[in-house]
């Protein structure tokens, strides 16, 4: 039994002395006038940090870990500013009743936004501690520093511990946005590969996962989804499950679920319950989706980039090339199906969820269910990785519907077919690329046109409430889909035009590095095609259009790592026995504003079978200041492997009725025998603000892979996934 329910604001912050840093205290005390016996402030959800009288520190944040390691990195950032040992920090994440709302976790914002806020709160606390100690030690605050939890004169001499300074007293302060931050050149905690404290728990079966969370009197729920998207529930035969003990069927319009004391009873009841559904054939089918996208109704054309005159420059170019790239619908495909526990009772509604945005989920649930937001509490717990918005928000609504119906706490975990079938998907993307080069091989025109499924903006409809006939918006936000379709190189004439389609066959959401992976697949694949047309080495061709030293640094680093020999593609000496070998390269500036990533790969292709083996991947990565190099490396490696999986295997398939790729057999992901050797070089830039690193290294993967396959075989692959069958056909 977990004790999460016993964590309350009172428990954390009201016991004993503390120095508390928030950002909206009603009675703000200027730091020069710290009242020693100030009445306890009326705590609202606004405190980032509390330093307790025993010298330990609690960080409170709306940013959540979801397996990325940021819970460690955030503590490092705070420990660095405060001079209090890392081990004394605990972190409370994503509890709408306890933590401040400084944004959800997504778009790699955990470090640049989350850590920056916490760092400022810690710097404010540090200044307050120095001011307090200044009186006690009879020194100017500017002559003091904090080391190992002790405030001491910088010049040496006796100090006083943070714990003693706080004693039994209470201080509350507002974050000072101008609080002096430590100079990165003096860092001793940030930049260190501190081990993640969740890993020992995860490796011994003792991490408190959402999927393991239980409450007294909790029942197990399962959902029974329609046989087709849009189908209506016609009949339910409850006698079909009369042999299963203690099951209740919950039917609300087209929402069908079961609730049981015993989880296995719920699983079997959901599987065996006989229900009939109306016929519904609303989908175009995943075969031929490329032409569907090209001809579907456009809601709005969006000029993403328009520089110079790409059309005229293309017409006048010495050499013109064009190509079409396609990326299919893909699933988050979380290893553990989404789960939630809902407890609806007279005092309010509590949802335990792994949502990457607990506050956003609370707002949406309150709106959809017509409950005042202050009566809804969402508490984050670790779960299977989500990589964007998987089924987590939907299953939270399912649990809420069921708990409302039975007035007991209900835990719902989706089954595998629910997750693969009903998670909101990363959209398919179609890109037409046109480019012109001059007689010297310079890119003079770049014209990219993309088609992206869409719909109205706003909150995504939740599956359960939709089926239950509840009113809600039907937004189709999938994240920033249009970035990185322009080249990161100096080109005078660039146009990127996005056709945002009126509709989407499948519900959309943000899937890791939204849009960027497909756009870079097209942009960097197409850049390679231009280099081939110019008969130039792929790296030299790109290097000419770059002057930013950070860009050149990652490129030079990766070419050294892989031992890049300049020559045009394809590889003139590709044949090695029955294999064709080659190498590929890709470079990106993530969102044209964040990470610099260069990647090179070596592949071997078996012509007879279409089997592609990636032998080596080298990646050089610059995301500014590095907070935790091992955590960062883990993220970068994960991005590479996951995107190799998306490139080799993944495509959501559907017929006219529903999604058909509903298990790991029909939606396979990369397995161990396919995993290449991966070398990652991290370039630390302590003088540059950190950007996030949960997405960028995935973006160049598909392009580098396709470029390597071309180098080996002379065949250009412009649609993922590069399954064995497809490669074999392409090579035939």
């Amino acid at each position: 039994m977990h004790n999460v329910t016993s964590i309350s604001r009172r428990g954390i912050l009201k016991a004993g002395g503390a120095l508390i840093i928030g950002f909206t205290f009603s009675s703000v005390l200027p730091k020069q006038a710290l009242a020693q016996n100030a009445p306890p402030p009326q705590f609202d959800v606004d405190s980032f940090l509390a330093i307790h009288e025993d010298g330990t520190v609690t960080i409170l944040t709306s940013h959540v870990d979801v397996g990325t390691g940021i819970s460690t990195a955030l503590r490092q950032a705070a420990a660095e500013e405060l001079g209090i040992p890392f081990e004394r920090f605990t972190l409370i994440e994503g509890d709408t009743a306890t933590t401040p709302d400084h944004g959800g976790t997504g778009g790699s914002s955990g470090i640049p936004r989350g850590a920056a806020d916490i760092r400022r709160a810690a710097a404010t606390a540090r200044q307050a501690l120095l001011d307090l100690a200044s009186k006690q030690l009879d020194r100017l605050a500017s002559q003091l520093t904090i080391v190992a939890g002790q405030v001491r004169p910088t010049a040496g001499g006796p100090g006083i511990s943070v714990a003693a300074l706080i004693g039994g007293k209470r201080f509350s302060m507002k974050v000072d946005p101008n609080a002096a931050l430590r100079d990165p050149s003096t860092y001793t905690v940030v930049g260190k590969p501190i081990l993640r404290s969740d890993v020992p728990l995860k490796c011994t079966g003792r991490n408190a996962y959402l999927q393991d969370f239980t409450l007294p009197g909790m029942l197990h729920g399962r959902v029974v989804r329609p046989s087709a998207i849009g189908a209506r529930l016609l009949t339910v035969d409850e006698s079909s499950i009369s042999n299963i003990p203690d099951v209740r069927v919950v039917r609300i319009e087209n929402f069908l679920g079961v609730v049981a004391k015993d989880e296995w009873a719920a699983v079997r009841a959901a599987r065996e319950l006989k229900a009939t559904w109306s016929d519904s054939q609303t989908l175009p089918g995943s075969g031929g989706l490329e032409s569907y996208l090209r001809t579907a109704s456009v809601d709005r054309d969006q000029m993403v980039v328009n520089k110079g005159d790409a059309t005229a420059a293309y017409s006048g170019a010495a050499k013109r090339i064009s190509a079409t790239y396609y990326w299919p619908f893909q699933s988050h495909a979380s290893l553990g199906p989404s789960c939630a526990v809902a407890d609806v009772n007279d005092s309010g509604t509590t949802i335990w969820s792994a949502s990457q945005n607990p506050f956003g989920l609370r707002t949406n649930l309150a709106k959809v269910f017509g409950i005042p937001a202050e009566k809804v509490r969402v508490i984050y717990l670790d779960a299977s990785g989500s990589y964007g918005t998987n089924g987590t928000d939907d299953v939270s609504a399912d649990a809420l519907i069921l708990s409302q119906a039975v007035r007991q706490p209900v835990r719902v975990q989706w089954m595998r077919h629910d997750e693969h079938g009903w998670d909101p998907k990363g959209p398919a993307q179609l890109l037409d690329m046109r480019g012109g080069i001059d007689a010297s091989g310079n890119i003079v025109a770049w014209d990219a046109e993309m088609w992206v499924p869409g719909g109205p903006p706003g909150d995504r409809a939740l599956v359960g409430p939709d089926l239950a006939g509840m009113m809600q918006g039907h937004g189709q936000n999938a994240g920033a889909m249009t970035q990185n379709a322009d080249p990161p190189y100096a080109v005078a004439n660039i146009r990127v035009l996005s056709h945002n389609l009126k509709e989407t066959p499948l519900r959309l959401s943000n899937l890791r590095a939204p849009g960027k992976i497909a756009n870079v697949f097209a942009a960097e694949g197409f850049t390679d095609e231009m280099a081939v047309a110019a008969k130039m080495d792929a790296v030299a061709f790109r290097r000419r259009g770059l002057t930013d030293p950070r860009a050149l640094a990652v490129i030079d680093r990766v070419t050294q790592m892989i031992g890049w020999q300049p020559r045009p593609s394809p590889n003139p000496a590709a044949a090695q026995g029955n294999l064709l070998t080659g190498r590929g390269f890709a470079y990106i500036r993530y969102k044209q504003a964040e990470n610099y990533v260069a990647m090179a790969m070596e592949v071997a292709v078996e012509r007879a079978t279409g089997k592609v083996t990636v032998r080596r991947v080298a990646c050089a990565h610059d995301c500014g200041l590095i907070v935790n190099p091992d955590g960062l490396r883990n993220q970068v490696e994960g991005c590479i492997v996951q995107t190799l999986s998306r490139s080799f295997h993944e495509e959501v398939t559907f017929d006219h009725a529903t999604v058909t790729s509903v298990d790991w057999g029909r939606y396979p992901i990369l397995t161990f025998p396919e995993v290449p050797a991966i070398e990652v070089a991290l370039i630390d830039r302590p003088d540059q603000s950190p950007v996030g690193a949960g997405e960028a290294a995935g973006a160049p993967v598909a392009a580098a892979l396709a470029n390597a396959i071309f180098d080996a075989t002379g065949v250009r692959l412009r649609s993922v996934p590069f399954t064995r069958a497809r490669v074999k056909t392409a090579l035939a």
Partner: protein
Amino acid sequence: MPAYKFRVNDGSVTVDSWDPDQPLLYVLRNSLGLHAAKFGCGLGQCGACTVLLDGKAVRSCQTPVKQAAGRSVTTLEGLGTPEKPHPIQAAFIAEQAAQCGYCTNGMIMSAKALLDRTPHPTADQIKADLAGNLCRCGTHTRILNAVARAAKV
């Protein structure tokens, strides 16, 4: 309700199950409070639910509780603790071979069965043996390094 007696992590347990075909996974998690084995697919495709049955790695989502009767089950909790981890667990911790950690149970239990059988596997043997264990975060190279590290100890 029929009762099933078996050993779990060196202790003896008797559990009731209304259905003799109830997968061992649910019995471990809900009757015995052993949460390390995870539900991933219920189809034997992902390996998140792996436990050892008489020392052999099995998918507990595909193992009816009646099959466990009279036998010995080892779960990840039974190998070691955060304070006293088993050498394979220690190797995973040293390599920081987890992100979300949902697959970790299956990785370590499969590695345990492999190393018990083949104490010094080649890199290709490790890859082949873990081929049925899926990881979505992409922690594969660290997991391979962890198993290789444990094999050297």
